[in-house]
């Protein structure tokens, strides 16, 4: 399995209570692509660390710093990835409000805000599709309105994002 690395680490973290299908998003093509990228970069960084280690052994003092740095980056990659997947599990279980869903939900708000929220959804979905940068001022205004709407929806979770968890 190509997603053997960080993916399984996060999967074991997730208890069974989700009754199965929750984890299915992990095998969507988009996620598989990310898994593959993470696994390749993980082993790439481990390999670079190993290479620096051998350079250090053969007398290149500077390489000692990189001998430890590359494996550290590899660990970062795993930790970041595991947390990303855990967040996604939480969103899908409804423990955290989904930013996209909240934006859609806010469409039912009064007129002035509805259109705004859609634009903000585009801002949040960001990389996925790419929001039109053309309507900049409107997007900013809308983004702010959507942010307020989202804050409303999130009050219960207040404090969660203020620092390290």
């Amino acid at each position, binding site marked *: 399995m190509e997603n053997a690395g960080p993916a399984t680490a996060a999967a074991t973290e997730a208890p069974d209570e989700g009754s199965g299908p929750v984890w299915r998003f992990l095998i969507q093509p988009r996620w598989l692509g990310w898994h593959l990228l993470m696994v390749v970069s993980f082993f790439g960084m481990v390999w670079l660390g190993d290479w620096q280690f051998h350079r250090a052994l053969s007398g290149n003092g500077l390489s000692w710093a990189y001998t430890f740095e590359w494996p550290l980056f590899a660990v970062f990659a795993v930790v970041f990835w595991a947390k990303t997947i855990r967040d996604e599990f939480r969103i899908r279980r409804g423990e955290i409000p989904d930013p996209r869903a909240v934006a859609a939900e806010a469409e039912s708000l009064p007129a002035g805000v509805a259109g705004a929220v859609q634009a903000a959804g585009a801002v949040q979905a960001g990389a996925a599709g790419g929001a039109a940068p053309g309507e900049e001022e409107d997007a900013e205004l809308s983004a702010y309105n959507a942010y*307020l709407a989202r804050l409303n929806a999130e009050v219960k979770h207040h404090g969660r994002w203020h620092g390290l968890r």
Partner: protein
Amino acid sequence: MKAAVLRYRVMAYITGVVLMVLCFVGIPLQIAGYPAVANDVGVVHGILYIIYLVCAWMLARGLRLPAKPTVIMLLAGTVPIMTFIVERWVTRRFINPALGEGSGQAQPAAGRAGSLKP
């Protein structure tokens, strides 16, 4: 959230400056036969980049950025000048909307949207 933004910004600028010194001073000197600057600044950048990674990651998580902008933010610390460009972009595109600090028009909107609370 503001603290996370500040941490990210400070690290983006420090890392960016050190990386520019490395690339535009250290490497020419190294080519000219004086590798000391590149070696030392290289190690410093390596350490700063680790801190930058943590700060950028925490901000990206706080803002709940999608994967791609997150990766762009993290990798920006390794490309000369890129930290500055990405910092501006992230500020305009994600930080300001999240903090409600849009330019101009956002202010009247604040009252309008604020009154929506059920």
